[in-house]
């Protein structure tokens, strides 16, 4: 076959960087734009809270953090008692929720019969989806009357510990029941109902990822079920346990409605969790924004900013804990 030179086509390399098609440029541009807008909105919220707080800190200085009273009429505004109350309620909730969440997560991932597992997982998710107002109603009407006895018992027998002290006589002929209602303890119990499913879901997710090989190795060495859990599942899930708990703590710090309904407002700087009265930042904001002047509104925003910084700190720590652990990738869902 004759091939003339003119028939030879010089090989041209295929373009391997063919510019992005137009439709893709539109696609990338628009999602990037939406993401940018979302980022700007959320960034603005934070900047806004921060900027408003600056003026408050200028006006009140460090007193804003050390003053316990919230008396706008006397120009005495501070959040020390409120801050302490926020932390105490959240810690009470955590102390109650942590062991229960851990045990429930272990039960679901290690003990429950296989056919029940999916149901139990959805039950925990459902528990997280129950609106907090419903827990609040439950706590106020059902739990509160039953907790008075517990509070009284703790006061009577453990009252020498400062946090269990109550400003009343435990052996009085007629029990001063009102002293034990509306306490940070009861609010903490109700908040623990909201913390529990969050912490439990994270922990269970991590436990389920524990490597089967190591589980089988533990059994092959003759370990009992608890021995396997103690040596394989718990060490593997440590990051998830801490992370899930802190995620729950973040929720507990910001909880508003349940605390607003159950806790009676009081502005004392006190550790006595069994006693009537207390306050948290979110309760303060929910109750005081209505009649607030511009200056007070800025002060409420500053309180909100402090709350936000605390929650952010806790959540960031949680995220780091979860990602640092071996089980990091497992907690995405």
């Amino acid at each position, binding site marked *: 076959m004759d091939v003339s030179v003119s028939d030879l086509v010089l090989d041209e390399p295929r373009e391997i960087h063919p510019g992005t*098609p137009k*439709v*893709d440029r539109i*696609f*990338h541009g628009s*999602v*990037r734009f*939406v*993401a*940018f*807008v*979302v*980022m700007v909105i*959320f960034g603005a*919220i934070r900047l806004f*809270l921060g900027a*408003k707080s600056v003026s408050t800190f200028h006006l009140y200085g460090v007193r804003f953090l050390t003053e316990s009273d919230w008396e706008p009429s006397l120009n005495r505004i501070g959040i020390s008692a409120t801050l302490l109350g926020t932390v105490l309620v959240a810690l009470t909730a955590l102390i109650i929720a942590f062991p229960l969440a851990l*045990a*429930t997560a*272990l*039960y679901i991932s290690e*003990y429950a019969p296989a056919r029940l597992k999916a149901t139990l997982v*959805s039950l925990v998710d459902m*528990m997280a*989806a*129950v*609106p*907090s*107002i*419903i*827990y609040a*109603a*439950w706590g*106020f*009407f*059902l739990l509160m009357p039953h907790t008075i006895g517990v509070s009284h018992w703790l006061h009577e027998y453990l009252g020498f510990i400062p946090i269990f002290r109550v400003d009343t006589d435990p052996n009085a002929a007629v029990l001063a029941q009102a002293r034990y209602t509306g306490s940070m303890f009861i609010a903490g119990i109700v908040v623990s*109902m909201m913390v529990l499913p969050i912490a439990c879901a994270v922990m269970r997710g991590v436990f389920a990822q524990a490597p089967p090989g190591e589980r089988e190795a533990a059994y092959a060495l003759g370990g009992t*079920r608890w*021995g396997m859990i103690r040596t394989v599942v718990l060490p593997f899930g440590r990051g998830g346990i801490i992370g899930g708990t802190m995620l729950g703590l973040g929720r507990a710090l*910001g*909880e*508003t*409605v349940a605390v*607003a*309904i159950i806790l009676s407002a009081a502005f004392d700087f006190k550790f006595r969790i069994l006693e009537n009265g207390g306050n948290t930042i*979110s309760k303060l*904001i*929910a109750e005081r*924004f209505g009649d607030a002047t*511009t200056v007070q*509104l800025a002060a409420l925003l500053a309180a*909100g900013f402090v709350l*936000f910084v605390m*929650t*952010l700190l*806790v*959540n*960031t720590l949680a995220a780091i804990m979860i990602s640092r652990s071996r089980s990091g990738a497992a907690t*995405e*869902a």
Partner: protein
Amino acid sequence: MAIIPSTAAPPAGSVEVPGPPPVQEQPRPLTTRTLDDLLSVVGSALGAFAGTWVVYEQLLPLSGVLGFVICWYIAFLVMYASVCALSHPRPIVVSKLMTVVMTSAAVLVGLALATVIVYTVGKGVKALVHLNFFTRDMAGVGPTSPLDQGGIAHAIVGSMIMLGIAVAASLPFGLATAVFMTEVGGWFGKVVRTVVEAMTAVPDLLAGLFVYVTLIVGLGWERTGLAAAIAISITMIPIVARSAEVALRVVPGGLREAGQALGASHWQTVRRVVLPTARPGLATALILAMARGVGETAPLLIVSGASTFMNANPTTGPMNSLPLFIYSSIRSPENLTIERGFAAAVVLLAIVFVLFAITRLLAFFSLKRFLKRYKTPEMSTPGGLWT
């Protein structure tokens, strides 16, 4: 193309290698339950009950159901441990004890959830049996009016309108953000992810406070359903974005590469491959965010005024909603009002559970479809894809 029938049978002429007869491997049973185990649990429980009753109720000056149950439980644990110790070495006793502890903790949590639901329904049922509770509003109905007057139609309608607006706002924003974070990404994607993640840390109350200060105090809006819906969307967008991102990330990368290798543009790949594959996960993300949004109370306290009458217009006037109605009702000293509040709580709980059930059904059906699609013989035999 289809010359070779796609069967799993070995080709003719291959030599059958005689091997040892297949041994059915049996996993070591970890959950054997003998009669002994059962009886030690039941026996310890009964024994502890009797012992506690004698000591607690008869001998010591103690009373109270809660204290009794706690003492019974402790006595049960001690008794169960000693019964097990009679026939087992220490590690097994510890293991058995932990099994009982874990199980009882899970039961306790389940009981707590059950009491929440049962108590709410029990207190709300008196108002729920009246049909007018669902069809009337509270205009002109006093706190002491009997339950066959008035209802929560205005709160249900208000909640639905707010939720509708919030979904309409948060779905496109949340989804587009999630698509950006997973499919486009880059350094800016990391920035957005950090911001969105930090945003889930913001207590929902602060979203309400932000809307209150900017829109109501700053721009002079009145308290309307729209303002409330905006506050709810602010809390919903990060939830939608985060969970949609998780749903998109589990789409196998091979599918994306296949789409691109067939010459599809990035947009076509996302639209025709990634989003349809992730659809059940995305629906779950949205519905879970809706369940969160409809029960959101804290921001509503601040931005939406509570009306007693029907107001279907989100742009003017106060608009009531279920959480807000519950909140104001249960703080009332009047028994009838509290009962109305609990009945509204049952309605809210029912909405949340229905939304929740939908996510479960979606997950179930997508699994069925997945199995149907991928369990055809052509797909499941090796080489079947080539014929």
